[in-house]
């Protein structure tokens, strides 16, 4: 028989860290609230019959957010065999609010007070025995980060699950409330699920619509209950839900007075002191800019570059490609197959893998920023700044996640309740460079700018800038009009991430990248090689000579669409084709260049790959190319995520169309204006850029239309239901 233990607790209390430690999983852990949006499960190590469920972090069992609905539905309907309630020991008072609700569910419960290492470090004391006595369940001290007490907590939870020790809530409410609860219990006798009567009765008292609907009570019973509730509301001069909330906090305060001695009460914690600087009104944005600049500069321009140069030029250029050549020659392999393997697969996949060292350095930085707690501050900082432009900080959580990969970034938009804000976030999230775009940034920075310090960080800021511009423009359209949703976010305390946590995150991301190079990219390189190596010679379809690339199928297709990009400065068919192959996977763009510009040929000639590639673009057209590919439609996986989240074909087309159109306009303006400044020649392209600029200025500064809430809601329901 299998036993299910649910990990439940407030957001950012270390549930996923504990889940990983108990099950040996590698779920993503981040030091900001909202990392887990759906429940996950794994087997408890050493207990094949015990399943651990990691639930999204919630503040209460009220159905206000999606996470709360997911957790509440699971706990009430599916009823795990036990709850392991994870409580943040540094913030006991707030955490106990949920604990009091969990206790009412009647499910056997063990409370694990997490972050005890921090509690002791702060000099605080928690009286575990007293807490256990007041809550009516076993309480254990743990530190999920260091592993202290976690096995004992899991064993204890497994034990109560197996013995089915039903939890009985110890707390009681004020006389009039308990009186009304007793009436409700009596009126609903036999109508409520066994062992959950207390929770249902309280929810009925709170007038929880979802519970009322689910129970399908007769109207006469509902009327009777309403009479009881109204009587209490009149007596206590408050609404029912607020009465229960106040009662809970009164009870929690009494527990805190008895069980928790805070040495640092009233004093600023280390996190508060850091935040005084890091989130300071004037310093926050410059510090944020400096940190992100440093992250991209170090990743792409300094440490990563040397390693990438070595992989590209030495490992692939001087070692792997000549070795593969020799092997093919010695085995007398046919020319076409020789070409496919060396000029196609090794050149294409090799060009992508060459950037792994830079990616690893970037992943280390991102993992550190996520785990230490700074990422949460970025959302807070940007919310304060961008609210002035009508954008909500809630949108920045998906964008922060999107800096790793656009797919989870887009899906994280589910946490945004306001439908127009959610759609706008989906449309703009992928403008932040994801890790797959890093090789493109590194390629352009290395090949055209000689590793100039500003190129890689500028790509990140182009993304942020584009999101702001898009936000302002879109908010002024009828489709997205309305005030930004209020953004309340708990700032987690800073802590030094463990080496294991960072290593796990870096390994997960790097291995995904390498795996992708060995799957999607590999198949794409075979296709690109075929299309670029075969074509028509004197009317006959044949494999072409190396210098007849312009006669290939790919050149034929590419030249049909290349004119579209001529105003952006890169009307060459190779660039156009690369941009299109980037839609399969963004790294594919680099793989395509690896084939078309011949990583293998560069190796033969003893040239550096980047040097060979640099011939076809000017500095301005290269940056315009970079800009377009950063901002245009993302890869198919992300487009699929957009379609799933929009749940509407029309909205998906609007999103992808907007991204491509916006990217085109930005790249056009950049290329045309910078060309005009550098050459002084006013062309038709410059005139077109002036028109685009004028339209954009109008869209940015025109007055916002009047918000009509009714239209927004109807529209939202059409799409989401």
């Amino acid at each position, binding site marked *: 028989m299998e036993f299910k233990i649910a990990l439940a607790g407030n957001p950012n209390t270390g549930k996923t860290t504990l889940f990983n430690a108990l099950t040996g*999983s*590698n*779920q*993503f852990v981040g030091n900001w609230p909202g990392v*887990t*949006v*759906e*429940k*996950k499960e794994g087997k408890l190590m050493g207990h094949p019959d015990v399943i651990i469920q990691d639930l999204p972090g919630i503040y209460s069992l009220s159905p206000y957010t999606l996470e709360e609905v997911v957790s509440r539905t699971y706990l009430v309907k599916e009823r795990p065999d036990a709850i392991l309630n994870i409580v943040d020991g540094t913030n006991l008072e707030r955490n106990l609010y949920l604990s009091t609700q969990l206790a009412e569910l009647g499910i056997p419960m063990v409370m694990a007070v997490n972050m005890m290492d921090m509690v002791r470090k702060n000099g605080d004391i928690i009286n575990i025995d007293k807490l256990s006595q007041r809550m009516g369940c076993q309480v254990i001290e743990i530190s999920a980060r260091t592993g202290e007490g976690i096995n004992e907590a899991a064993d204890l939870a497994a034990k109560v699950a197996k013995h089915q020790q039903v939890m009985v809530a110890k707390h009681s409410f004020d006389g009039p409330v308990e009186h009304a609860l007793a009436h409700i219990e009596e009126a609903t006798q036999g109508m409520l699920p066994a062992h959950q009567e207390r929770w249902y009765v309280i929810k009925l008292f709170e007038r929880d619509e979802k519970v009322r609907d689910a129970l399908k009570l007769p109207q006469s019973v509902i009327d009777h209950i309403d009479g009881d509730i109204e009587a209490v509301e009149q007596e206590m001069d408050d609404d029912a839900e607020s009465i229960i909330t106040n009662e809970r906090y009164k009870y929690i305060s009494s527990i805190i007075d008895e069980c928790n001695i805070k040495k640092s009460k009233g004093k600023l914690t280390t996190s508060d002191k850091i935040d005084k600087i890091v989130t300071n009104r004037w310093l926050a944005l410059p510090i944020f800019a400096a940190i992100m600049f440093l992250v991209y500069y170090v990743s792409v321009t300094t440490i990563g570059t040397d390693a990438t140069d070595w992989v590209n030029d030495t490992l692939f250029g001087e070692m792997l490609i000549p070795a593969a050549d020799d092997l*093919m020659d010695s*085995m*007398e*392999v*046919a020319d076409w*197959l020789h070409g*496919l*393997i060396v000029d196609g697969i090794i050149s294409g996949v090799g060009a992508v893998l060459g950037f792994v060292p830079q990616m690893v350095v970037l992943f280390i930085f991102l993992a550190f920023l996520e785990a230490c707690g700074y990422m949460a501050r970025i959302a807070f900082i940007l919310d304060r700044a961008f609210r002035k432009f009508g954008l909500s900080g809630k949108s920045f959580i998906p964008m922060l996640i999107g800096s*790793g*990969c*656009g*797919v*989870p970034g887009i*899906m*994280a938009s589910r946490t945004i309740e306001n439908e127009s804000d959610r759609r706008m976030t989906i449309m703009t999230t992928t403008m932040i460079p*994801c*890790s*797959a775009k890093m090789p493109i940034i590194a390629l352009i920075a290395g090949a055209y700018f000689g590793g100039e310090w500003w190129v890689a960080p500028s790509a990140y800021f182009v993304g942020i800038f584009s999101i702001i511009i898009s936000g302002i423009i879109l908010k002024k359209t009828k489709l997205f009009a309305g005030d930004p949703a209020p953004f309340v976010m708990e700032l987690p305390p800073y802590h030094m991430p463990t080496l294991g946590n960072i290593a796990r*995150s870096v390994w*997960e*991301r790097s*291995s*995904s*990248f390498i*795996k*992708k190079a*060995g*799957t*999607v990219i*590999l*198949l794409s390189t*075979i296709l690109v090689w075929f299309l670029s190596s075969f074509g028509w010679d004197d009317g006959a379809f044949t494999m072409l000579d190396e210098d007849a690339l312009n006669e290939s199928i790919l050149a034929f297709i590419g030249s049909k669409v290349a004119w579209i990009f001529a105003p952006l400065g890169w009307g060459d068919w190779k660039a156009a084709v690369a941009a299109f192959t980037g839609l399969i*996977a*963004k*790294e594919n763009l680099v793989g395509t260049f690896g084939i078309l510009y011949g990583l293998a040929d560069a190796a033969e000639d003893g040239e550096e790959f980047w040097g060979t590639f640099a011939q076809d673009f000017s500095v301005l057209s290269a940056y315009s190319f970079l800009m377009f590919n950063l901002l245009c439609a993302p*890869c198919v*996986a*992300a487009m699929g*995520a957009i379609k*799933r989240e929009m*749940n509407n074909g029309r909205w998906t087309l609007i999103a992808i169309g907007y991204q491509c159109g916006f990217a085109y306009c930005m790249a056009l303006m950049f290329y045309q204006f910078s060309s005009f400044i550098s050459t002084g020649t006013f062309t038709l392209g410059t005139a077109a850029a002036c028109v685009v600029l004028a339209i954009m200025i109008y869209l940015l500064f025109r007055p916002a239309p009047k918000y009509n809430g009714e239209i927004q809601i109807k529209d939202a329901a059409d799409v989401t239901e």
Partner: protein
Amino acid sequence: MGTFIVGLVLFLIVAAVIRKMYKDHKAGKSSCGGNCGNCGLCRGKK
């Protein structure tokens, strides 16, 4: 002979890659390159 052996090896690799991608797709795993091999969001499609 060399062409046959190398061609066969390549064919097997490509077949294995396609099979793996198909299985991942069926399992609801995303093919994106970020940290989503183990991501509940990516696996838990609507």
